[in-house]
């Protein structure tokens, strides 16, 4: 791949790359730094990129490897940051079980990065278990476990009892009907 084509394709992935960085860091400045590091590493290692393969997946792999490498180096700072976030969380259930998006973001930020990563790859980007396992460098069983734990944690934050999903759906429906005088649309 020549340099201009490489740059054009790299540029086309920048916004999704930054969104993926946000899914890992939940912090604008940290996401920007992560994208910058990823772009520089990718650009200086384009000889290792196999033309015809998925550049986005390749960039994701560089980005996540950089993120986890940086996190290992700054483990203490990350713990402090997580503590601050945890203390600031105050999740209130909406009447139908939905969180406002801002509240959902807070709940998402509370999850371990490994769970956010898998939730993003599978829940948002529609990766298969196998594709996510390849990007993350772990076994499919680990991906399934992280996905389930992440969803359970978010469901818990949304005050959804996964074992009683249908029952709570009925309760939520009844609440809406009752609140609207029995004429819920």
């Amino acid at each position, binding site marked *: 791949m020549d340099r201009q084509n490489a740059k054009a394709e790299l540029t086309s992935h920048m916004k999704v790359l930054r*969104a993926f960085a946000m899914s890992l860091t939940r912090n604008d400045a940290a996401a920007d730094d992560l994208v910058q590091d990823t772009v*520089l590493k990718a*650009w200086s290692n384009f*000889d290792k990129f196999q033309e015809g393969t998925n550049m986005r997946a390749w960039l994701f792999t560089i980005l996540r490897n950089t993120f986890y490498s940086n996190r290992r180096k700054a483990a203490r700072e990350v713990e402090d940051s997580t503590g601050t976030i945890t203390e600031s969380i105050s999740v209130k259930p909406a009447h139908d079980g*939905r969180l406002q*998006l801002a509240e959902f973001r807070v709940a998402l930020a509370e999850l371990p990065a490994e769970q956010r990563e898998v939730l993003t790859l599978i*829940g948002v980007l529609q990766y298969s278990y196998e594709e996510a396992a390849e990007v993350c460098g772990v076994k499919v069983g680990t991906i399934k476990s992280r996905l389930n734990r992440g969803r359970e944690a978010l469901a818990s934050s949304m005050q959804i009892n996964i074992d009683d999903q249908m029952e709570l759906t009925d309760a939520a429906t009844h609440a809406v009907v009752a609140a609207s005088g029995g004429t819920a649309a």
Partner: protein
Amino acid sequence: MANRPQKQPWDTLIDENLKRVFDEDANAELPPHLMELLDRLDKIPVADASGTTGATSQSQEEAE
């Protein structure tokens, strides 16, 4: 064959929120310094397939 996750009803609700969060982030404007970085890429040498430019170490240094 790819193994696609089986979804529960609440998973769909969670995924919808995940997508909204991701879309908001993906639709945000890139900060100026990242745009400037893309402009500067042309000035950063790239090793060819045989790695013969001799610029790799310089680029790696910048990456770190």
